[in-house]
């Protein structure tokens, strides 16, 4: 009786850690290699981390069974290990289900090992399995949280960098600046475009601003409203605005919508717009004479 009461996961891990680790790594790597043939997986590091994780589990289950409602302590070794693991794989584009797979594989292996190694009529086996199941579930949640957190951070960074990239104001010639508008114009971007354009107009003492909307997919009233406000602000600084790149379909739609850019000079193409802009500062493009 005493023998069976002393049976712990710690003991099992003591004896079979390497064997379990190998089976674990094989199974996980097999799936990952199949699904992510182009991702370089650092096997040594994965093995090292996994061994450390098993060490932590062994310690956790060596004495008394972890109490009901056990949670990984934030900042503890086990939580840190999982956090690092998750962050790393989220960054490498391993999907969430394949990250979670990592824990579910070892859970299967451990349950099987417990069932095999338990002495006959072991009274603690059920409690042990339930407890281990709970602990590994909590670890899965930790893993998943870390994964989501990382992904969200990546997304936030990307949208920030997109915002940075997407509104260059180009100095085309003396006193002529140009803004190519590309993509979705929402309130935030409209504000940013206006700011940048006004800064550029002031900085270069521009008298002509060319606003190219070729890259705006849909010109609806909201986008048109934003553009109009940008234009009004530029005009207030004394710049004349030439708008270019409205395609024939867009023009028809805008007219139907009741939006007209009557107070703005418009040109169908950027080419015509540049010619117009240069003309207004008394310049034109001529062929080089031989």
């Amino acid at each position, binding site marked *: 009786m005493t023998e069976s009461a002393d049976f712990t996961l710690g003991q099992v891990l003591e004896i079979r850690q390497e064997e379990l680790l190998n089976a674990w790594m094989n199974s996980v790597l097999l799936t990952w290699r199949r699904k992510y043939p182009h991702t370089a997986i650092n096997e040594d590091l994965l093995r090292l981390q996994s061994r450390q994780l098993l060490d932590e589990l062994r310690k956790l289950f060596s004495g008394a069974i972890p109490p009901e409602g056990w949670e990984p302590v934030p900042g503890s070794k086990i939580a840190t290990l999982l956090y690092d693991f998750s962050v790393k794989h989220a960054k490498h584009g391993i999907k969430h289900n394949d990250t979670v797979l990592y824990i579910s594989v070892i859970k299967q292996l451990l349950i099987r090992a417990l069932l095999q190694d338990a002495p006959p009529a072991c009274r603690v086996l059920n409690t042990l399995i339930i407890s281990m199941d709970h602990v590994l579930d909590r670890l899965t949640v930790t893993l998943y949280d870390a994964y989501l957190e990382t992904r969200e951070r990546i997304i936030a960074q990307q949208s920030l960098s997109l915002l940075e990239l997407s509104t260059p104001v180009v100095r085309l010639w003396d006193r002529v600046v140009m803004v190519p508008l590309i993509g979705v114009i929402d309130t935030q971007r409209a504000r940013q475009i206006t700011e940048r354009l006004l800064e550029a107009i002031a900085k270069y003492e521009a008298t002509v601003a060319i606003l190219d909307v070729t890259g705006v997919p849909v*010109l609806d009233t*909201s986008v048109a409203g934003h553009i109009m406000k940008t234009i009004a602000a530029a005009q207030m600084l004394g710049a004349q605005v030439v708008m270019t790149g409205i395609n024939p379909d867009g023009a028809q*739609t805008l007219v139907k919508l009741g939006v007209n850019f009557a107070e703005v000079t418009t040109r169908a193409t950027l080419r015509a717009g540049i010619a117009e802009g240069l003309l207004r500062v008394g310049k034109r493009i001529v062929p080089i004479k031989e």
Partner: protein
Amino acid sequence: MDTLIPQENAESTIPIRDSTDILKARHRARELAAALRLGSADQTRLATAVSELTRNVLQYAGEGECRIINASSDHEVYIQVVVEDHGPGIPDIELAMRDGYSTSGGLGAGLPGVQRLMDEFHLTSRPGYTCLMIAMKRPRALSF
């Protein structure tokens, strides 16, 4: 004559929760119009109308739903778009349909503009439920 859109794609529902859903909805609308061989001007019209309505949902109701329905027959291309939300509703529909009227500092061209872009336009609104049904009707392009 075969219908170009498989039956299972005859209706698609796009929940409208943030601005990326506007893109999704108008992309879906444009795709359907293109698949039904409508010209690029009509594709743009439909996409713009969907863009207007779904943006209204976000702006005034916070969230809602956009259904794009292909109800074309052999003789006619018929695309219906139903946009619903459970927001505060439009207090004065007549006023909202007037050009230049806006409660949000916009151009006030959205709803009347959409009506001009589309062939059918039905608006029902009460506090807690607003539904806009628009449709575009075109004779079937000859298929070769």
